[in-house]
């Protein structure tokens, strides 16, 4: 602590140069705010964090005001409380007020604030916001009428994801968040990451819901509905319901989905394993044919990152690993191999991926991801939608009995859990490269990392005679910086780069339950790490499901037949 300040007649410590809000929050003073985001510069847009400072005539916004030695602050004087309450009332005056019909009912910061500020009558009658909602995108829906213009989505889209798919349009009381010419997100530069949904305090940004479609399919006799669940979904469902790694969350989800009418429930971890094998294979292949193919190999399992590269960084496409994302791998398998094995018509299979991601909805809708004119993945549920669906069916996960995951895609190796967080995939690929080239098994190998952790990381490991560099970045801004750096410095010591578009990887995905700060993301990562330890199958190559699917010869990543359906393709913007 550099010095002390006085807050509500109590002394607290503060650091030179920090903002008042930070000092207050650290000391347990709860200050309401709608626009503040950690790690971002303050905007003072919502003004809810106002406090009274002795010697200042006006109320000041604590988020943007630096602390001063000996300053005297009042955070809950009558004047402050009154100002905050009026602000909330004014925000509500043009809000649609349709909370009962709102998807974020009960999970809305504006609603909480109205409750906290004890707003119990309508004092301001204003003209209501009337804007057309934008359902043009395959992933993100916008309802500008519910927007409070806090600028969180605009800032995260511009500063973290570098795409500025939405921005403030016009000025003054006509300001709204929109894309250029109101053309809709589908034709904008949106990369579908859904981070805007995560930061939106209200329901102005939502995922395009596939719930109705799925419920219709579940009720239909002609469709066999097959769910497959991503390991990172299990982590966040467990987090939401206070379950522990040993609670067999997956088996409970299986049982619940069966009660909803699911025909089969599979573990997407199997496809994660294939994805890791493919990436490792590609890396080894490139290393062996040094001259022809470019290094580093860049992961392509994140559809937002692929979309970004297609639009803004076409140069990176040559380096992309060619493997399909796990979701599309399993979707393809169900509609080809599995359908053949089961002698089922592919029209009769309805595949539903449960993912921590909204970009997967976009990915599933792409034409390249169809087979004989039928989508490989028919619907994608986010974690939020899954929880909502279970509630609407009246199911309580904690009360469910445990049911086994359906064969053949029932095993998830410990490596597959690594796709759930940033850095995990690079580590899993490194292990696999060890196994493939060094001849010795290193299934519990972990990167040896320095203690000072930052978002972007890299490490070097020695495999056989060679030293290989592995790097992993999450968020587009970090990816862009890192790849630029590699290019400019002409570095050739990095051989594999894992890129995830969301901060923290899939643990911080746009389809996760609304996260309040980075703590949730860290908790989900810890869960995945725990599950890695519990998983009996360590190496992806040892996954018994591979044998079940591909026969005794096993899965051969370089195999031409396998390539055909497992190959990803990219659509460079002209």
């Amino acid at each position, binding site marked *: 602590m550099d010095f002390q300040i006085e807050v509500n007649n109590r002394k607290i410590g503060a650091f030179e140069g920090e903002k008042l809000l930070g000092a207050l929050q650290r000391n347990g003073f709860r200050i309401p705010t709608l626009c503040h985001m950690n790690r971002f510069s303050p905007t003072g847009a919502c003004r809810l964090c106002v406090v009274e400072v002795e010697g200042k005539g006006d109320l000041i916004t604590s988020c943007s005001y630096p602390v001063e030695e000996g300053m005297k602050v009042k955070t809950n004087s009558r004047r402050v409380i009154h100002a905050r309450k009026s602000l909330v009332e004014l925000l509500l005056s043009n809000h649609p007020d349709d909370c009962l019909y709102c998807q974020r009912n009960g999970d809305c910061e504006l609603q909480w604030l109205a409750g906290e500020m004890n707003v119990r009558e309508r004092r301001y009658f204003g003209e209501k916001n009337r804007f057309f909602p934008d359902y043009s995108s395959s992933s993100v829906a916008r309802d500008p009428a519910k927007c409070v213009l806090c600028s969180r989505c605009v800032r995260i889209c*511009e500063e973290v994801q570098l*795409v*500025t*798919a*939405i*921005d*403030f*349009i*016009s*000025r003054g009381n006509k300001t709204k968040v929109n*894309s*250029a*010419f109101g*053309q809709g997100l589908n034709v*904008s*530069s949106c990369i579908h990451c859904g981070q805007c949904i995560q930061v939106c305090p209200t329901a102005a940004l939502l995922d395009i819901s596939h719930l109705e479609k799925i419920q219709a399919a579940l009720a239909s006799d002609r469709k066999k509905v097959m769910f497959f669940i991503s390991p990172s979904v299990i982590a966040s469902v467990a987090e939401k319901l206070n379950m522990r790694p040993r609670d067999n969350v997956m088996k409970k989800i299986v049982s619940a989905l069966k009660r909803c009418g699911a025909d089969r429930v599979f573990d997407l971890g199997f496809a994660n394993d294939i994805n890791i094998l493919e990436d490792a294979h590609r890396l080894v292949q490139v290393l062996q044919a040094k001259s022809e193919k470019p290094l580093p190999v860049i992961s392509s399992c994140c559809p937002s990152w692929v979309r970004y590269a297609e639009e803004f960084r076409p140069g990176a496409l040559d380096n992309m690993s060619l493997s399909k994302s796990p979701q599309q791998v399993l979707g393809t398998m169900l509609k080809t191999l599995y359908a053949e094995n089961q002698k089922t018509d592919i029209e009769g299979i309805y595949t539903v991926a449960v993912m921590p991601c909204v970009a997967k909805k976009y990915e599933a809708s792409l034409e390249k991801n169809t087979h004989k004119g039928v989508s490989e993945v028919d619907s994608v549920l986010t974690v939020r939608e899954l929880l909502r669906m279970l509630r609407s069916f009246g199911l309580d996960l904690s009360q469910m009995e445990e049911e086994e995951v359906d064969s053949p895609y029932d095993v998830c190796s410990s490596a597959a859990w690594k796709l759930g967080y940033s850095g995990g995939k690079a580590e899993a690929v490194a292990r696999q490269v060890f196994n493939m080239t060094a001849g010795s098994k290193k299934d519990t190998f972990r990167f040896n990392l320095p203690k000072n952790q930052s978002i972007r990381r890299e490490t070097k490991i020695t495999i056989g005679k060679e030293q290989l560099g592995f790097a992993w970045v999450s968020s587009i801004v970090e990816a862009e910086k890192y790849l630029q750096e590699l290019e400019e410095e002409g570095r050739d010591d990095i051989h594999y780069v894992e890129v995830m578009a969301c901060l923290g990887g899939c643990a911080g995905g746009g389809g996760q339950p609304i996260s309040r700060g980075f703590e949730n993301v860290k908790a989900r990562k810890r869960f995945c790490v725990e599950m890695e330890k519990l998983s009996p199958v360590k190496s992806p190559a040892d996954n018994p499901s591979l044998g079940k699917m591909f026969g005794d010869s096993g899965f051969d990543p370089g195999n031409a037949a396998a390539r055909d359906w497992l190959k990803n393709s990219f659509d460079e913007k002209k």
Partner: protein
Amino acid sequence: MFMDTTDIDKVFQKFPNQKREDLIPILQAVQDEFGYLSSEVINEVGRYLGMSENKIYGVATFYDNFRFTSRGRHHFRLCHGTACHVAGASTILKELEKLIKVSEGETGEDGLFSLEVVSCMGACGLAPLIQVNDKFYTNITLDSLKEIVVSIRKKDKASI
């Protein structure tokens, strides 16, 4: 309707730095060249400066001087300063919108009329007033407004 933007490089040549700071001067120059900022033009500017189209549109809409639709052959500017407001500019505006079937800030589909509302033109003694292209009409009443529109329509027909 797509705009031909082949000449835009000539405008860009005046701004060789390709810096974000040049955005507003570039937009002004481009608007001078093309008359307004179309989606195609903004796209080209974005490509030149490496900026998102949405960002540029957001910046441009902040300023009143940028237009996003082409002007009609007869561009109405209606003064809505304090004096004109007191003299009934709001009523005039509503009536004018009805007469020319174009709402504020827009251009009719036939390209005949466009309507812009501006702050004080500085001729408060003559309120309310409108400007059509280069010509000013002062002390407007609902009746005289109708005559103005009818006469412009006639003239336009004759000229074609």
